[in-house]
């Protein structure tokens, strides 16, 4: 069942992430779409992503009849401190220009004329928000106002930073994407802010950041009860607590299994138990 953002954009309830796929990116995106994923996440950042190879997959999918309008595309602007020497913009230009250049380059890579979601990969500041953060957010807002992206969001953001952004931005983010640790209550603070403001919370590294909980007898008992895998249990839990999960699995079987997690429903007691399991 898709989610709807506060500005009425529909977004699929599960997303395929393409980080660290390198030259396998194109093939894996094709497999993910074949498995049933309709939302793809990438970034214009060659350190961890290969956006152009996502674009190659989109071209092939279009030839198969799966056209751009049938897919939800999300990519990111990565500030210079998150890039290596392969920058998709002029590092000497203003941040506003860097965003415009990176966005244009993303459109070229992805063979499209607009995005569904454009995300700030992370604030410039470690704590609080500085002038650079406000400039970059204003640049994203301009793209949104111009209709070039249907939503804008922010990733790798702390609760304090998100509170600030929501309070002072012209457009508060429509989505947040964070690494989600069970040890920190599955990023509870940030999720609470998202809930208050009607922001979609996307969780990544749900499995790799939390493999420790797989050994918990309670998790194993729940997996057995619902006759499902531990990964599906985590994904279903995340959806039921209002999160949009990302998976980056490279296994076609796991892609299908992950999407099937919606076939069972955890009780509120079980959700509460998992929510505190890693703490």
């Amino acid at each position, binding site marked *: 069942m898709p989610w709807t953002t506060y500005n009425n954009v529909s977004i699929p309830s599960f997303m395929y992430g393409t*980080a*660290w796929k*390198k030259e396998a990116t194109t093939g894996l995106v094709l497999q993910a779409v074949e498995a049933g994923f309709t939302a793809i996440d990438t970034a214009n950042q060659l*350190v*961890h992503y290969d956006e152009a190879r996502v674009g190659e997959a989109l071209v092939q999918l279009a030839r198969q009849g799966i056209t751009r309008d049938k897919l939800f595309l999300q990519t990111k602007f990565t500030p210079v*401190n998150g*890039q*290596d*020497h392969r920058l998709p913009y002029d590092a000497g230009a203003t941040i506003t220009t860097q965003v415009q250049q990176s966005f244009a380059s993303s459109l070229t890579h992805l063979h499209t004329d607009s995005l569904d979601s454009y995300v700030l990969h992370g604030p410039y500041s470690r704590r609080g928000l500085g002038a650079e953060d406000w400039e970059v957010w204003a640049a994203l807002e301009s793209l949104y106002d111009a209709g070039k992206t249907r939503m804008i969001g922010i990733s790798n953001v702390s609760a304090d930073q998100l509170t600030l952004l929501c309070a002072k931005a012209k457009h508060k983010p429509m989505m947040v994407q964070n690494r989600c*640790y069970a*040890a*920190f209550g599955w990023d509870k603070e940030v999720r609470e802010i998202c809930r208050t403001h009607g922001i979609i919370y996307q969780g990544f590294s749900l*499995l*790799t*950041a*939390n*493999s*420790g909980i797989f*050994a918990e007898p309670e998790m194993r008992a729940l997996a057995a009860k619902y006759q499902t895998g531990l990964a599906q249990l985590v994904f279903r839990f995340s959806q039921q607590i209002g999160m949009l999960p990302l998976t*980056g699995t490279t296994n076609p079987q796991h892609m299908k299994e992950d999407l099937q997690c919606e076939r069972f429903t955890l009780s509120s007691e079980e959700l509460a138990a998992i929510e505190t399991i890693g703490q």
Partner: protein
Amino acid sequence: MKVMVKRIYAPAARSDGFRVLVDRLWPRGISKSDAKLDLWLPDLGPSTALRQWFNHDPARWEEFQHRYHAELKGKTELVSELKGQVPRGTVTLLYSVKDEQHNQAVALRSFLMIRLAAGRHGTRGKKHAVVVEGPNTTMSGRALKPVVQLERTGCGIAAVAAIAGVSYRQAQRTANQLGIYATDRRLWSETTYVRPLLRNYRLCPASTEQPFLSWSSLPDLALLAIKWHRERGRPCWHWVVFVRDSDGERVLDSKRSLKSHVRRDFGRMMPKWYLAVVTKR
């Protein structure tokens, strides 16, 4: 680029650069904000079974590293995520245990450095080179000088130092930064570990060792394996450098007790095989 290790309970410093916790479990007594982390990669830590087997017993350290490195080879995405940070500045791997010499951060660092030096998953070349101390002189126009090994089993490090034109201590420090230690028994039976060290000095080793046939058929520069024998069923040898230039053919032998470290007693040395080396400079 630099990869450091540090106990998470030590105060964070600006010089730490990108701080990554590599413990599987969140360390006791430290809050999320006090940790001042840029990243926590719990799944990059050793498996629970391996951690429990190791139990920080120094006697199991060597085997622990071997097994942990094998586990890391199956975690390509997490290793890629970490490796992606390294070329952009200092990365500090954080751990919680008291033992500062034998822990997963130290083992992970050596894995990472060998991977980076070997360029197996990244861009080869200058940008990723982990040169700590460069050669004092260039190869061109300079006669190679022997380097005496300062560790009993440091012949491989001494041989590379001789070719690179650096001191034993300089090569030793660079080797240690790459996770290569003369005391590591695996070094005595494998050539894998000397290759990253050579590459680090812009020296290009041949991809495979070649059997020794005759002195005249050797290339102009090679690492040569002499005194080849088996110890507890594992092959061992002594590394020397073979060089052929305007001063003729000779072998540079790092063994400390030798009267002359430049040898021409070719009949007494019985090389088993050689590794050709080409200088890129």
